[in-house]
């Protein structure tokens, strides 16, 4: 399909009106006074009386010149728009037209009406008509008797839950959520090493149920997982139960309605549930990574559908992105190779030392209490636990140092065979002291509801050069 060419506006004054609009009817008698003006009317070729108007029947003029309000008055010089005003603002009309006594008998101001080209019932169809040509993906026709949802399951495109059908109209509306060009390549997606364009990722976002304003977060997350550092290939292929965990922060998380409070790591919030889902659909459909194929997880975890949450803007210890070197008031996300979360219950500690010891005791068990250094972890501190630290004046570096001090493991206790358990480190490490986490391997995030003296631990996967390193990126529009 080829998009119709944008119609050029003639030089001079151009006015776009519709008969149905009361303000347009009010100013209609003035149009005859505007010498040489070109009038486009959206709905009635006979309007305005006494003026030879051009009917913008397919709304191409209105669409291509971004007319959102009628009347719109534009002054065109050498084919280029020099000035525009919308609705009726007498002083503006006088300035743009150069007619000093224009509308003497009219009120100084009256708002216009919505242009038919932005009518909610028409806008998706117009976008498809005028911009559909930029979509490059293959069109797949569904048979007449196919159920839309079943058809997408049958083609193997879903993660086990129904997906929204990625129609041209929906994908074009999704692409409005980013300023990036639809054919820009965002990442090369493992395991098939296929280049994913903004368009392909927008398709996944539609299918996942995202709103257009989530798209920049999805694009950034896809970029963040598809590189040698994060190594989505390995994360997908491993037999361990891990997937990309997406931790978001910054003012944009509030704007798009992400949940950082009650049930932040759970269900019920559209942005949290669909951003992570879209990322996984990109891996599945663009990259070709599917369970039983390259995805060899022994158990997997339910977070592989979507594990994405926002950090509390009121956190007394700042954000995880800041820990990773990004400024605090910037929209950013961190991707972490993580398993499902587990809860740390400590309802009695009011001293930070006691709470740190509780958290350390639980952190020691990440993947196995006798395995040090191999796995990173995120501690998602709930507000009530954070308060214990904040009241005592412990900031993020202090909390991390105190946890690290409590997570030094005695080699004698973790060598193979110790405690009657064959798993563990080689015997020659008896007598050594080993930290549970490598330097920088323990991360802190802040999320959760205001009530409950709990935190959550998200265990990682093979870390560093052997496996995955968490990646933090700023989110751009």
């Amino acid at each position, binding site marked *: 399909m080829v998009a119709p060419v944008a119609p050029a506006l003639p030089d001079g004054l151009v006015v776009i009106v519709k008969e149905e609009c009361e303000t347009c009817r009010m100013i209609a008698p003035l149009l005859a006074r505007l010498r040489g003006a070109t009038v486009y009317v959206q709905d009635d070729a006979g309007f305005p009386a006494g003026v030879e108007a051009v009917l913008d029947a397919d709304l191409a003029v209105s669409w291509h010149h971004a007319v959102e309000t009628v009347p719109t008055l534009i002054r065109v010089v050498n084919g280029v728009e020099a000035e525009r005003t919308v609705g009726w603002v007498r002083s503006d009309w006088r300035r743009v037209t150069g007619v000093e006594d224009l509308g003497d008998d009219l009120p100084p101001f009256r708002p216009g009406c919505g242009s038919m080209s932005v009518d909610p019932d028409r806008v998706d169809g117009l976008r498809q008509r005028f911009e559909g040509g930029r979509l490059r993906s*293959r069109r797949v026709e569904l048979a007449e008797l196919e159920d839309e949802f079943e058809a997408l399951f049958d083609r193997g495109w879903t993660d086990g839950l129904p997906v929204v059908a990625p129609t041209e109209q929906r994908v074009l509306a999704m692409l409005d959520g980013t300023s990036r060009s639809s054919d820009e390549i965002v990442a090369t*997606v493992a395991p098939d090493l296929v280049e994913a364009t903004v368009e392909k990722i927008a*398709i996944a976002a539609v299918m996942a149920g995202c709103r257009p304003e989530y798209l920049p977060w999805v694009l950034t997350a896809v970029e963040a997982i598809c590189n040698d550092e994060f190594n989505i290939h390995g994360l997908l292929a491993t037999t361990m139960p891990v997937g990309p965990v997406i931790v978001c922060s910054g003012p944009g998380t509030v704007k798009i309605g992400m949940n950082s409070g009650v049930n932040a790591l759970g269900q019920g919030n559209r942005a949290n549930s669909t951003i992570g889902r879209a990322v996984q659909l990109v891996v599945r459909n663009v990259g070709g990574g599917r369970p039983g194929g390259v995805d060899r997880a022994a158990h997997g975890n339910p977070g592989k559908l979507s594990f994405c949450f926002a950090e509390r803007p009121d956190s007394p210890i700042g954000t995880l992105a800041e820990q990773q070197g990004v400024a605090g008031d910037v929209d950013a996300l961190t991707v972490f190779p993580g398993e499902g979360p587990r809860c740390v219950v400590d309802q009695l500690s009011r001293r930070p030392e006691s709470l740190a010891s509780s958290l350390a005791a639980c952190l020691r068990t990440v993947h196995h209490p006798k395995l040090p250094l191999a796995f990173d972890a995120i501690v998602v501190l709930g507000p009530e636990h954070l308060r214990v630290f904040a009241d005592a004046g412990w900031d993020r570096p202090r909390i991390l140092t105190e946890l690290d001090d409590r997570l030094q493991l005695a080699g004698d206790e973790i060598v193979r065979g110790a405690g009657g358990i064959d798993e563990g480190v080689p015997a020659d490490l008896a007598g050594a002291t080993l930290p549970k986490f490598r330097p920088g391997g323990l991360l802190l995030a802040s999320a959760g509801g205001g009530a409950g003296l709990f935190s959550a631990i998200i265990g990682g996967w093979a870390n560093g050069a052997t496996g995955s390193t968490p990646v933090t990126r700023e989110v751009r529009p």
Partner: protein
Amino acid sequence: MNRFVLDPTGERTVVERTLLDRPPSLAGRRVGLLDISKPRGNVFLDRLEERLATDGAAVQRYRKPTFTKPAPVDLRHEIATQCEVVIEALAD
């Protein structure tokens, strides 16, 4: 009315490749053994090397830097140019 959706896949053109014929014997063949760096993979490959040597194969050993990532292009090229047969080992 016709309903269309956009293809969410990578739309790859799958290159069809046919397998080479199985060699009738490994005697005199150059056989590459690729250790993917999983624990104890070497134990398995040591034993294979012994068996292959008995069969008269010339064994060459290779190792991936980490099991979590695909073999680097250079390593794949090296194996392809130096060997006629390759065995890739998993372990655990």
